Structure formats: structure tokens, C-alpha cells
């Protein structure tokens, strides 16, 4: 096994730089090399500008700006020797066989024994890359195909050649999985590997049939998007994103390498419409526009769509297709719908899914590899075989036959069954051998979805549930829409707190497998209650939240929060009350209440004060901490990674980060078990707050911002309430207050704000547009 401690990346383009950044995110030193451009004085100009670009790109390739320091830049003329220290050397240069092979020869002389070399190629077969290269090289070589952007796309496709050492594969696999957090899928040396092979055909069919069936781009994307569980960019939005000019290259490369009787060859047609777009510079977001564009001529940002017949832009209008609405009842309702959207959906799905089914085992050993590739590489919610199960394989097969389309062998083989089945609480998948095989998880991977399939719910309602993770650890799961928090969730937390000691559990993990850990309070409920002037009800629910979070904090057992995705507002506050946090690297934490005209009132102000006051690295005295918290909450700072959350003290030094989403629960459980040994709850702290004089400093600062046009009039209203809470109201700095005092101030502040029209307008605007109102 190769222990990967240092990585070299050659090629500082978008992919190479992104891969280098993610290596740095994982804590590794990286050497990033590129050529010396003709006549360049600064010989590292390419890799240097690449690193500079990494710091400016949005979404950020780096989880923390300081990670850039782990990347050492250089060029392949002067610095190739630096590769001698690298355990893994990744080639990510242009897709040119000769260039790659030349480079390999040069690498081969520099690299150390047992180091691994891989290519990030997406189009060139491994067989060609390694043809006639020395055995030593071939043994240590593989293809590692990252997806763009490497930090965010979970898929890593690995292709081994016939000579590749098993060790190499194993090292790459476990490193990518555990250290990089990737979902690794082993592929065969076939064109486009798995994800692009299917994805390219899917895009081809989705674009072609949209033209043929007379759909608008909005309609096509509405059909393709949510109903099929595909990101809402659909197909045309995705083309704009990746660059329309890429398409002819992709097509050419596929046509050059695909087997002779491949469906793609039948389906592919050069489009004069698209070629004209490319020729005139309409290449998507990076060009003058794409299938969509933002028109700012009128001073406003108007989203426009291209007319697929005339090529003219017009303001985008949401699709009115009834089939899309029908699709909420399920995929079959969508494809059965008689309107053009329904027919279009069927044409796209019938081609894409048949194609995927016909490629096992040609491109992948198992159907779950295919599904995982599409989920992790194209961000589909469901893979092709999961989609087939939704339609029903037998139904699908019947309809193909009725329409004279060939039925893939695998679909025939599965017969009346489904591709996945739940056999005695074990998940099984249908193999190309014609038998079902158990799907096993790697060691250290624990999925709540598996526990839920196997286990009984210990407690719960429609909003939250408690599950037995084994080893006396209980898991609390939110499952409301966006995992928003309401009285029903609190009811379950309350139950869990009494149930853990009563039933012999020793620790609690708060975790779920939603896209976001929690977006905080159910804003719609809160706004509705406020419009009803339901002050006493609202007051009660604020108090209920505070009580339940305090109860978690002082419970006689350890509580570990295990967030992934967004944990905002009340969703962040629950984590602040945990004994420890095991966060997925992609966790976005923030107390964003001011954006909707509120202040944190489920103990968020209180906990942040305590964290800053107890932070040994910061100056003592009440005002320093208060100022920091005022800034973080007043600016609604959100961490853009778990690592950044450390700077904001949402995470403490003792909290941990898991790179791989699938390993988060197991890591959190392990942490909970460690904490459960001789656990004793925290001691209630005393807090010294500055009182009126401290408040004046904060309100004056906001007044200045307001004068400078950097804060709005309602910002002033909200932050003055926040300042009141954080300064301790009428507190005397020499007399300590307790947690209950701060909680009371939080309640008073939020109730006062809820009665202001400015706050209600902010809440309504957020609910209706998803964006904060600057009033």
C-alpha cells in the first residue's frame, strides 16, 4: 500500500487547479506544475495565476483561504524533480495523447518507487495512454477521473489497466474515499467511463427531442429537472454551465471511440442551431449568453430564454405544462401524460434508461455503480436503475415493445421484479448474472437509510424520529421540509431526552441525510402566527425552543451534532448546544436571523457569547467577545465550509470534520461513544456583560454604517435589539448574570421585532423569493 502524504498535480487548468485545491483541503501538501509559456519571464505564471484564481472563484474550490498555502507552484521545466517527493502524481493536462505520453516519460525518470501516477483524462483509453510504456510505469498507473468542480462533485471514477497493481487501486480507493471524501466507482476502460457515457447520451437526447417535439427551453428543463430528480438546471441550463462549445468536442471524441453499434451513433445529429450559437459566441454563461441569459440592458436583471425556432431571446416564462404538475404523482404519471411534456419525458427516459441498462456489464460490474456514478457525478437524485424501478421494469419493457423499441437484456431478465429489493431488511441489487446480490457498505460507512430499513423507530412523529444506532447510541433525525424546526420536532427532542436514560442509551447523535441539516425555524409558520398577532403562541414556542435546547445541553448524556449542508438559524443553534460536533466538510453554519429581521432566540446569542468569552486566543473582558458576536450575528456570517466554521467558533477545536458524507454518522457515533465514558454535564456558567455602555458602542457603529449607506433603516432596528441582548440589557459589568437572564433578553428582543412591519416584510420576502429583503 502506498501511503499518500504528498501529491503532485501537473496541469494548472480548471481541473488541475481544482484537484490541487481539494488535495489542500484534505490537508496535504501539493505541487502544482504547468508548462512555461513561450517567452514568459515569470516561469511559474500558469500555476501562480491558477492559485490566484482559486482564491477568487465562486463557489470556492478551497475550503479555507489558508489552504492555498499548501500548494507549491512550479513549472515542468525547472521543478519536475519536486515530483520525486510525491506519493501520487496526477496528470491533468490537455487531452492530447502525445503530450500526455511525453510527459509520462519525463515523470517516470523523476518519481520515486511505489509512487502512483494517474491521468484525469475523460476521453482517452488507458490502453492508449500506457501503450509500450515501461512495466514499472504501467504497474503504478491508473485513470482517476474527477468531476468539475472537484471539491463539490463527489464522484471519482477509477480505471485500472491490466498491469495496474491491486495495491495501487486499493491505495487510491481508500485515500479518495476517506481523505478526499469522494464516492469512488471502479470503471472499465471504455469510452466516457460510466457517468459521461450515460450523461452524454442523456444530454444528446434531451436536446434533440426538445427541438423535435417543439418544447421551449423552459419547458424542457421543467420536465427534465425536478420530476426526474435532476438538478433544476435541467439540460439547457447545464449546457450553459459547462459551455455549449464543449459539445462538438465531446461528440467527436465519443464518435471516435464508441463501439460500432452504439445508440449514441444513431441519436447524434450535428445541430446547425447549436453550431451557429457557438460560431457567434453564444457559448453559455462564459460567452455572450446561452440557452438562457441575464439581460441587464434595462438596468434590471431579466432572465431570458432563447427561442429554439427563431434564435431570438425573450423573457423566460415558467412552464405551464400539465405533465410537470402530474409528475408530482410519480414518474409514471409524467411519462403517461398526453401533453408534449409527457411525450418528451418518455422519449428522453426511454432512450437514456435503455442505454444505461444495455451497458451493464460492458461499462460497470454492478447497477449500483452506474447509479452512484450518475448521482455523484451528475447530481441526479436517482440513478437510472432507481428511475427504472420507479417506472416499473416490466411496465417499461412493455411500453418499449409496444413502440417497437428493443428491450435491453437486463430489463428482460429482471422480469416482474425491481432492480433493487429489500430482502429481510437487507438491500439487494439485481446483477447481470440474473441473481440478486447483497449491497454491502465499506467499513466505517454507516447510513441512516440502512438503519431505517432494518430497525424500528424508537420514537417520532411526522417531523422527527429517533433510531437505534447500536452500541447504546440513539440518533435523532429531522425530516420536515428542508428540515425546518417546529413544535413537532421539539416534541420528539423532548421525548428523546427522557427516553435515553430510561431505555439504557448512553449518547445521542443529531443527524439526518437530507440535503441540509436544518434551515432553522419554520419561517412560514412563524410569519403566519405573527400576522395573526398570535403573540402568546409565538412567545410559548420561543420559550419551548430555549427550554428544549437547554435540556439537551444539560442532559445526563453526551449529545453530538453531525451536520452536513446548511445548518442555519435554529438549525445552527441546536448544534451550539451539543457537547461536540462532528461536521461533514461541506457544512455551512450561520446565525442568519437578521436576514429575516430577527435575532437568534433559541439560545444562539447566549452560546456565541460563551464561546467567544471562553476562547483563550481572544482578549478577555466582556466587550471583546460581545463585539465579535455582534459582528457575526449582525452580518449573518455563514461559514462556507466546516473548516471556516472554526474561525467563527461555530466549531470548537475539539470538534471534528469528516470529509466523506457517508462516513459522517459512523464518525459521530464513535465520538459520542468516547464522550459517554464518565460523562458529566457542563456546569452552568456565569456571564459578565457590559450593559448600557457596551450597547452604545455597538449602536453607534451601526448608525455610522447607516450614514455611509451600508446599513438600512431596518438593519438599525434589528441590530439595536441584538445589541441590547448581547450587552446584557441593563446589566452591570461587575455583576455576573446567568444563562436564563440572556435567554429572557433574547425572547424580549425577538417578540419586539416580530411586531415591526419591517421584520414581517423581510420574512415574507424570504419565503416568497428565497432572498433577503434590504429594507
Amino acid at each position, binding site marked *: 500500500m502506498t501511503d499518500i502524504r504528498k501529491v503532485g498535480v501537473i496541469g494548472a487548468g480548471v481541473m488541475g487547479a481544482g484537484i490541487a485545491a481539494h488535495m489542500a483541503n484534505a490537508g496535504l501538501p501539493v505541487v502544482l506544475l504547468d508548462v512555461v509559456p513561450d517567452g514568459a519571464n515569470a516561469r511559474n505564471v500558469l500555476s501562480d495565476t491558477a492559485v490566484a484564481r482559486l482564491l477568487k472563484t465562486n463557489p470556492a474550490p478551497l475550503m479555507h483561504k489558508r489552504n492555498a498555502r499548501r500548494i507549491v507552484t512550479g513549472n515542468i521545466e525547472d521543478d519536475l524533480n519536486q515530483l520525486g517527493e510525491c506519493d501520487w502524481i496526477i496528470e491533468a493536462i490537455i487531452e492530447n495523447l502525445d503530450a500526455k505520453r511525453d510527459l509520462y516519460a519525463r515523470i517516470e525518470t523523476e518519481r520515486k518507487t511505489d509512487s502512483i501516477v494517474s491521468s484525469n483524462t475523460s476521453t482517452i483509453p488507458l490502453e492508449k495512454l500506457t501503450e509500450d510504456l515501461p512495466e514499472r510505469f504501467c504497474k503504478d498507473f491508473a485513470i482517476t477521473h474527477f468531476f468539475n468542480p472537484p471539491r463539490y462533485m463527489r464522484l471519482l471514477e477509477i480505471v485500472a489497466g491490466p498491469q495496474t497493481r491491486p495495491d495501487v487501486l486499493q491505495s487510491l480507493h481508500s485515500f479518495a474515499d476517506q481523505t478526499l471524501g469522494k464516492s469512488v466507482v471502479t470503471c472499465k476502460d471504455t469510452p466516457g467511463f460510466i457517468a459521461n457515457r450515460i450523461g452524454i447520451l442523456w444530454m444528446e437526447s434531451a436536446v434533440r427531442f426538445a427541438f423535435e417535439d417543439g418544447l421551449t427551453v423552459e419547458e424542457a428543463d421543467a420536465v427534465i429537472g425536478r420530476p426526474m430528480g435532476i438538478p433544476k438546471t435541467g439540460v439547457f441550463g447545464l449546457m450553459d454551465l459547462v459551455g455549449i462549445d464543449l459539445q462538438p468536442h465531446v461528440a467527436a471524441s465519443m464518435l471516435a471511440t464508441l463501439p460500432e453499434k452504439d445508440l449514441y451513433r444513431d441519436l447524434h445529429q450535428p445541430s446547425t442551431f447549436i453550431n451557429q450559437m457557438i460560431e457567434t459566441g453564444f457559448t453559455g454563461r462564459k460567452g455572450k449568453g446561452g440557452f438562457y441569459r441575464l439581460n441587464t440592458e434595462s438596468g434590471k436583471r431579466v432572465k431570458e430564454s432563447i427561442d429554439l425556432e427563431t434564435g431570438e431571446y425573450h423573457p423566460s416564462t415558467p412552464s405551464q405544462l400539465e405533465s410537470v404538475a402530474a409528475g408530482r404523482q410519480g414518474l409514471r404519471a409524467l411519462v403517461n401524460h398526453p401533453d408534449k411534456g409527457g411525450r418528451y419525458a418518455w422519449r428522453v427516459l426511454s432512450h437514456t434508461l435503455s442505454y444505461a441498462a444495455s451497458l451493464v456489464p460492458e461499462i460497470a460490474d454492478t447497477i449500483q455503480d452506474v447509479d452512484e456514478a450518475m448521482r455523484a457525478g451528475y447530481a441526479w437524485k436517482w440513478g437510472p436503475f432507481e428511475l427504472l424501478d420507479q417506472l416499473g421494469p416490466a411496465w417499461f419493457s412493455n411500453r418499449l415493445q409496444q413502440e417497437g423499441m428493443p428491450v435491453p437484456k437486463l430489463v428482460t431478465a429482471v422480469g416482474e421484479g425491481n432492480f433493487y429489493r429489500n430482502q429481510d431488511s437487507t438491500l439487494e441489487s439485481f446483477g447481470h448474472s440474473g441473481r440478486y446480490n447483497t449491497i454491502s457498505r465499506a467499513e466505517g460507512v454507516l447510513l441512516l437509510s440502512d438503519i431505517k430499513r432494518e430497525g424500528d423507530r424508537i420514537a417520532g412523529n411526522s417531523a422527527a424520529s429517533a433510531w437505534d444506532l447500536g452500541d447504546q447510541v440513539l440518533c435523532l433525525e429531522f425530516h420536515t421540509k428542508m428540515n425546518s424546526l417546529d413544535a413537532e420536532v421539539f416534541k420528539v427532542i423532548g421525548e428523546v431526552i427522557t427516553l435515553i436514560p430510561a431505555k439504557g442509551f448512553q449518547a445521542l447523535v443529531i443527524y439526518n441525510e437530507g440535503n441540509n441539516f436544518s434551515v432553522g425555524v419554520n419561517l412560514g409558520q412563524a410569519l*403566519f402566527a405573527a400576522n*395573526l*398577532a398570535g403573540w402568546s*403562541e409565538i412567545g410559548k414556542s420561543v420559550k419551548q425552543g430555549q427550554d428544549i435546547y437547554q435540556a439537551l445541553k444539560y442532559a445526563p448524556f453526551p449529545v453530538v451534532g453531525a451536520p452536513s449542508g446548511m445548518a442555519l438559524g435554529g438549525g445552527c443553534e441546536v448544534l451550539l448546544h451539543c457537547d461536540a460536533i462532528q461536521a461533514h466538510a461541506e457544512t455551512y453554519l450561520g446565525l442568519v436571523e437578521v436576514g429575516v429581521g430577527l435575532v437568534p432566540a433559541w439560545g444562539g446569542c447566549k452560546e456565541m457569547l460563551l464561546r467567544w468569552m471562553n476562547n483563550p486566543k481572544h482578549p478577555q473582558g466582556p466587550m471583546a467577545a460581545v463585539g465579535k458576536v455582534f459582528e457575526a450575528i449582525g452580518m449573518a456570517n455563514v461559514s462556507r465550509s466546516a473548516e471556516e466554521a472554526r474561525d467563527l467558533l461555530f466549531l470548537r477545536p475539539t470538534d471534528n470534520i469528516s470529509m466523506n458524507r457517508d462516513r459522517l454518522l459512523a464518525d459521530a457515533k464513535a465520538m459520542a461513544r468516547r464522550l459517554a465514558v464518565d460523562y458529566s454535564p457542563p456546569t452552568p456558567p456565569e456571564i459578565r456583560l457590559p450593559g448600557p455602555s457596551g450597547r452604545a458602542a455597538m449602536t453607534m457603529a451601526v448608525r455610522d454604517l447607516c450614514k455611509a449607506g451600508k446599513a438600512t433603516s431596518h438593519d438599525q432596528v434589528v441590530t439595536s435589539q441584538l445589541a441590547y441582548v448581547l450587552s446584557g440589557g441593563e446589566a452591570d459589568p461587575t455583576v455576573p448574570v446567568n444563562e436564563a437572564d440572556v435567554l429572557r433578553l433574547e425572547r424580549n428582543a425577538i417578540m419586539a421585532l416580530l411586531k415591526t*412591519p419591517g421584520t414581517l416584510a423581510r*420574512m*415574507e420576502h424570504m419565503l416568497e423569493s428565497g432572498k433577503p429583503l434590504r429594507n
Partner: protein
Amino acid sequence: MASYSAPLRDMRFVYHELFDSSDISALPGFEEATPDLIDAVLEEAAKVCENELFPINRSGDEEGCRYHQGGEVTTPSGFRECYRAYAEAGWIGLSSDPQYGGQGLPAAISTLLEEMVCSSNIAFGTYVGLSRGAYRAIAAFGNDTLKTRYLPKLTSGEWSGTMCLTEPQCGTDLGLLRTRAEPNADGSYRVTGNKIFISAGEHDLTENIIHLVLARLPDAPAGVRGISLFLVPKFLPNPDGDPGERNGVLCTALENKMGIKASATCAMSFDQATGWLIGSAHKGMQAMFVMMNDARLGVGVQGLGLSESAYQAAVEYARERLQGRSVTGTKHPDKPADPILVHPDIRRTLLTMRALTEGNRAMATWIARHLDLRERAEDETTRASANDFVQLMTPIAKAFFTDYGFDITNMGLQVYGGHGYIRENGVEQYVRDSRIAQIYEGANGVQALDLVGRKVPAHTGRYLRQFFHPVQSWIESHAFTPALQPFVMPLAKAFGRLQLATGHIAQVGLKNPNEAAAASSEYLRLFGLVALGYLWARMVEVALTHENGADQGFYDAKVATARHYMERILPQTGSLFAAIMAGASTMMDFPDEAF
């Protein structure tokens, strides 16, 4: 024989004392609407209604409208003369834009005028009411040509208007509409189709009739998204603006109805009739909703007007009618029997009629003031908030006023006993005339659905804020005023029920729309009762400031009526609340075939 005297004292109370009329006079364009002017206008209006409209109310009911060969319709005797006088005095354009010849007075005033008209002769009111609806739609959505050509004539009353929505197969569900419109080369359209139940569709009061017709264009999408609104005059105006060539629109029959017999309810046939588009193609429903929303408040006021007439008639009769003796001993030994006014149940009936009628008048004015604020307030926030309030309260006013309009006219008939059942005494006409108001302009069940399905959830409850916040803060600031205790406490209790019921319906309705729909009628009633409770409590607050002053009797009666409302009517909110919380299962689980 019933009589009618306009309740001017109460109208002045509501307009000037309960609400602050100076904020309406302060709106741009209302500078001249001083208290003196308003009072003078109301007095003149009262004279017209009492002396001109009321005397032809019963005769109009007996005589009805007549259909003549060739499609002509004549109104009952006296209507033509009365209409001419009414129009010439400028009443039709009371709140219309002076630019088109209107008087430019507040909507809050014209609402009071409408009440008087409906009290004295509701059938007459339908003719002028429809002209106002047509005026508003053209003013809001018509182009300048249409406005200058039609609005002055509609304002002066020389021409009248109609709303042509209903077709034989298409009532509440306008998506089923079939009338079609085809474009002509000159930008006009040819409208063809059949409409039924068209009030004032044909008559002899005006020289021209302007029909606003819903129809489909050739390229229209199916359903309500494919409906456009057209202006189709009976006579096409000449270039000089006078009626010219007869258009292809014909009244083919008159309906024979339960009530409002002097109002011509017509079946209309449009045959290639020339018309002009109002607003944008396929956006007719939007324009229609403007008309409808205003018209709905107007229909609510019909219920209010008839309630007032019925109350006056019942009081008069209860004083005169001698039957039996008081259960506690003779009260009028000089007479052969005591007047029935001594009997508790008669008094209960009369006070119930009075409390609801005066309460509804306060609510009508409350809403109408917001029409003025919405139209003319200088800052946008006030205009937007006023619109929220009007949106919320309109379905409540329509259904609540007209349901009680029927109940109250029926109570009035009951006070008359057998004599109420006799036509010449006039009170059975009120019952018959009031009945339609529960049905047209959106049946009251549809109003309830509009409330729970659209108005309550809109913008996560934003419309509600304009009602709930003022009521809550009034309760909070008066909770400890000793003299108001008997009023604030029951209000607070009922208001709490309304808050809970609203939250409950919003929550269960989200998961199962049947739940919200099943609760909708009771919820609307609950809402109306709480709104009246608030207005009654505020009326008491005002009345109590007049202790030992002039008009003591009036203010004492206000407080006493308020007590009756709080103690005998508002508690119904308890049973309504229980019914709402019981959920939809009784009606939804019942098998269809078992009905």
C-alpha cells in the same frame, strides 16, 4: 304598511365618530368633502330614497318588468321618471372621477348612499349598481378611447352598464365559458354567444346599454386563462358620441323570479355583435375580479340595506300591534292588550336585528374607507395595506351581510306574524328580495372558499395582519379600562377563538384542502362575528365619551345594543369554533350513495 326613514344619525356616527372622517377628507381630491358637505349630501340622498324610490318599491314588485316582441323591455310604472330624476341629481356619479363628470366624493359616502337605495328600492338599485361596476372596469382597464367615449355617459346615467358572465353551462366555473370573439380588421371584435341571468340587460331607463362581456378569442387557451373582456354597446356610438346603429345584441327573454322583480333579469343573445377589448387578451378574469370585488361589497350592502328596512318595519309594527299581556303583568291598562314590544322574545328579535344591522353598517364603512385609502393615500405602504384589508374583508362582508340580510328580513316577517305573510304589508318582499344576494356575485359558499383558500393563505397570512393586529392591540390597550370590561373580555375570548381557528385551518388545509373547505362557511361566520364584536366594542368606547351630553339617548342605546351583541350574539363563536375544530370527517366520510 312598512315605512322607511334613512338612519342618518347612525350613519353620521359611523362616518364621523367611530372612524375619523378627517383622514378621508385629508386624502388628495377629497379636500371639499368636509363634514358639513357630507352631512348635506347624506340628507339629500335620504330625501330621494324616502320620497322617490321607496314609494315605487312595492308597486314595482307587483308590476314587474315586461318583455315585448322584438326584444324590448319596459320597467314598472314610475321607474323611468324616478331614474331620470336620480341621474339628473348626479347620484349615479357620486364617487366617480370629476374628469368624467362625477362628483368625486369618497367611496365611504357612496356606500352609505347605496345602503339607502337598497333599503328603499333594491330593484332600482341594481340598474345603477351595474353601471358603477361597468364604470370601474372601463376606468381600470379600458384604453383612453373607451374611457372618453363611455365613462361620461355612464357617469351621467344617460347610458347604463351590465356584466355578462353567466352562460347556461357556466355559472361559478367561468372556465366553461363558450361565447367567442373574433377580431375585425379595424381592431374591433365580433362577439357571438348566449348569456343568461343578465341583470339590467335590457330596459327602458337609458338610451344605450353598455355590456361588458366575457368571451374567448380564437387562439385562447382552455379554461379561465383564456377569457377576455369586451365592451359591447347596444347601440354603436356615432362619431359625435350619440347612439347610432343597433348592434347585434338582443334580449331574448326575461326571467320570472322570486324577488327583485322590478330588476330586469335577461337572457341575452350576441350575434356577431361589435365589441372592443378591455385590457389585455386572455386577461379578462383579472379585469373581472376588479369588478367583482367591488361588486361583492355592493351586494353585501344590499343585505345591509334590507336589514335596515326590515328592522324599521318590525319596530313600527311591534309598537302598534296589541296582543296579549306582558308575562309580568299588564303594562298598558288603557289598551285592550299590550303592544307586542313588551314580550322578551320580540325584544330579543328586534335587538338582534338592530345589533347586527348597525354592526354591519360600521363594517361596511370600515371597508369602504379602505377603498378610498387604497385609491388615494399618498404613501405606498398605506395603499398596499388598505388593499390587503379590502381583499380580506370583501368576501366576509358579502356573505355575512347577505346571510344576515335574509335572516333579519325573515325575523322582521316573524314579528309581523300572519300579517307578515300578506303581500300588502310589504315585509315578505324584503325576504324575497334579500334572497338573491346570498347567491349572485359568487354564492356565499364560494365567498367562504375565497376566504380560506385565497385570502387567508395569501403571502403567508399578510392580508390577515390588517385585521388581527389592530384588534389585538386595541384589546391589549383597553383590557384594563373598567368601563369597557363587559365588552373587551367577550371580544378577547372570541378573538382568541378566531386566532386558533385560523391557525388550525391554515395548518390542516395545507395537508388536506377538504378540511379547510369543510370549515369555510363556519369560519367566515366566525370571522364576521368577531369583526362586529370589535366594532361594537369600539362603538361603546366612543359612546361612553358622550355621557351626559347631547343626544344621550342615542349613545345609551349604542351601549345597550352592544351589550346585547356581546352577551347574546357573540357567544355563537363558541359553537362555530367547536364545529370548525371537529373537522371534515362527518361530511367527507359519508358515502355518496347514502345521500
